[in-house]
């Protein structure tokens, strides 16, 4: 019984991490039709922000807003310098961000070296709840992820900005001719997407090694979330993250991580078989 509770809590914390990582990916994809293959590297850079904050001796929690700001600025620079030129061609954006991910990994390696760095857990210890001991930091992580995802969903469904965004998603050209500055909205979306990746990176930094390749680990999971959850609707990200996390945790419990990855891939393929077909020739 306790083992099951623990597994469930593990599942929820995996869901929390997947949800924040995939959230940024989903915002950028849903709004701009751009798949950012460098998203994992944004997460990795967020983790390095936490590492730097630790090495200069500041409080870990400071790294969360700091990572958001740093990555927002980086996102804006990348949007202006690169994505803006090609964002209407989904294929080219995939390739460009593919190349970008190589650059970011390599820059991280040149600056910080290949070595694995660690960030100490700011809230060591465990909390006893539901009859089991579970790391307090992970409880906090779940709470923070819930707040971030809920706030984003609310912002996109309830605010004026959200209305503008949904108008663009529905019909970009029409929105543009209705006087919406879609360029500005793209800029915000890419910046915010990068910022949430940074937040995710800073938050997960104490849980594992901080290293240049760390972003790659998040990539498959986050993409499967986007494929499973669908696009166009932001809550699809939450549903997709839930499904992928459930499958992965369940399979890890009985087998291992590789089977978990295969199972979630199978889930994505299965979902594709039942998705309404896109009309021939349509673009994302």
């Amino acid at each position, binding site marked *: 019984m306790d083992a099951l509770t623990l597994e469930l809590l593990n599942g929820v914390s995996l869901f929390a991490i997947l949800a924040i990582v995939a959230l940024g990916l989903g915002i950028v994809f849903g709004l701009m039709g751009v*798949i950012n293959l460098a998203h994992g590297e944004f997460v990795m850079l967020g983790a390095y922000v936490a590492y730097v904050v630790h090495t200069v001796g500041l409080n870990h929690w400071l790294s969360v807003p700091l990572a958001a700001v740093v990555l927002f600025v980086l996102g804006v620079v990348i949007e202006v310098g690169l994505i803006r030129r090609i964002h209407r061609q989904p294929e080219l954006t995939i390739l460009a961000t593919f190349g970008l991910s190589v650059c970011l990994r390599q820059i991280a390696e040149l600056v910080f070296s290949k070595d694995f760095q660690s960030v100490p857990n700011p809230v060591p210890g465990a909390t006893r709840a539901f009859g089991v001991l579970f790391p307090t930091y992970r409880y906090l992580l779940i709470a923070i992820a819930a707040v971030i995802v809920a706030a984003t969903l609310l912002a996109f469904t309830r605010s004026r900005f959200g209305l503008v965004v949904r108008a663009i998603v529905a019909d970009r050209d029409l929105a543009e001719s209705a006087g919406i500055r879609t360029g500005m909205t793209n800029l915000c979306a890419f910046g915010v997407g990068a910022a949430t990746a940074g937040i995710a990176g800073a938050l997960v930094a104490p849980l594992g090694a901080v290293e240049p390749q760390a972003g790659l680990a998040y*990539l498959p999971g986050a993409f499967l979330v986007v494929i499973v959850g669908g696009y166009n609707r932001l809550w699809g990200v939450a549903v997709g993250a839930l499904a992928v996390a459930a499958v992965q945790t369940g399979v890890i419990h009985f087998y291992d991580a590789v089977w978990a990855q295969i199972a979630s891939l199978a889930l994505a393929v299965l979902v594709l078989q039942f998705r309404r077909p*896109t009309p021939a020739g349509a673009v994302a």
Partner: protein
Amino acid sequence: MKRPLSYGATAAVAAAVASVTLGDFRAGQLSLFLSLAVLAVSLDLVWGYAGILSLGQLLPFGIAAYTTARMAAAAPALTLPALLVGTLVGATVAAGVGIAAFRRRPTPVVIGLLTLVLSLTLEQVAEQWRDVTGGFNGLTDIPRITAFGSEWSDSAQDLFISVVAVLVITCVGLLVSRPIGAVLIGIRDNERRMEALGYDTVALKVWVFTVGGAVAGLAGALYVHRTGFVSPQIFGFALATNVVLWTLVGGRGTIIGPVIGTLAINFATATLADVWLQYWTLATGVIFVAAVALVPEGLVPSLLRMAGRPPRRSRDLPLSATAPTIAAGSGSAVFEATGVDKTFGFFKVLDNVTLTMDEPELRCLIGPNGAGKSTLLDILCGQQDCQNGSITMLRRDCTGLKAWEFARHGVSRKFQSPQVIGSLSVAENIAVAAWGADPSPWRLTFAAWEAPVPQASLRILERTGLDARAGSGAGGLSHGDKQWLEIAMAMAGHCRVLLLDEPTAGMTAAESLAAAELLREVHTDYGLPVLIVEHDMAFIRAVADRVTVLARGSLLADGTVAEVENAPEVVAVYGGVDR
């Protein structure tokens, strides 16, 4: 046909000479990079020609490499047959992926992601499945190719790999110079148009993905003999990035481009990586981003363009006339759509519409904007499904069939905005349409570079002057010429009933009347039944035997032009403006 063959033969001889004269070290590099060039060309076939962005081309490559390695270790005498097994394994893997991925037409982005994630997952599987793959360190000490009783020397093997690689690349070059090559480009440029011409585009994509998988599989089998080891990184992100980079930089949609890209970048890497170790990977990333942002076409096509030549030479092609009759035959029912309902969300576009054509005639379908005309036309040719009702075309129940099945049954369609295949020449567009009547990929691989075209289609080309421009690119035609080209394409296949959506849009009044005359002529001479959606009343008066009026999703009136124009309900709907 001649060009790829002679280029390929020359290149094979050059590779052999280079392999013998360059010395062991360079010859070894050449064979390694040429086997990678085969991989790049396999990506080019599926991506550059058929438009499927596959970031998982390492899947057939890597699995074939592992298979060949295991076979070489188990039965060293059978290394040559093992190369063929590797090819087959690659084809099987790719076929499986293609069937799972393409059926529901996901967007290119989803296919790219899915294939990438598949490849990355397989990297983990290869690390874990130690019994078969040797785990993280992979399989080492793979023997060289053994044949004629002995294991070959390094230099003999390098010579063999280089020559085989060039020959395989030549075969792909030959393939894309055949009719199937033009058809693949058609699918890349305009999948909807190809479906409306009778091509089962999903099946063709699976086919080309399978062929690409076979080529990648052979590349993997050659590669593993050359390197002598294989590890899980063969599925990894680094190689996946690189193969896309080589293809992109060289120029997809050409065969020579990816080969040059692969050789140039790899020789540069081999030379610079020693000096520049730290920065070279960063440089590849920067080259990648710069290539996408600045020369997305690739170097070879861009250079060709600068030299004033299109990257793919527009080719003329002999069009011969087939039997003059293409029609359903008079006195027989052409089509019958009964009780058709169609709803988009909450909006009912068609409400219990029944439209029949009892014998071949020129019928116009008119109605105010939003009446449901284009939707009805879509349903009559399978571009959209209807919720209720049945569709009988040319005496066969076609309800629920797909667009390409309608087309092969003889239902041809011209879209509202002209849909032609911009990268192909005028003659190739017509030929692709004509081949749609019997579009098996194997037949299209071996068929002659010519097309039998119904006389009606040829007559349209002659009368509009398009026949004089048969060799020029369709993408550069004016709007009006594209309209006519698409009408000629619609008539070029197995056309027994023609559906036209606003054929005169964008034409002047005089051009519209000429169009009406030409359509009447084709209808009279060949007995072709035609259904036209139109707004232009002058054109309709000139062309129509009969007019059907659709308003707000329901049938409003039906009769001769004069009858319909005077019907009070029609006048009410149009506000009497047009009289």
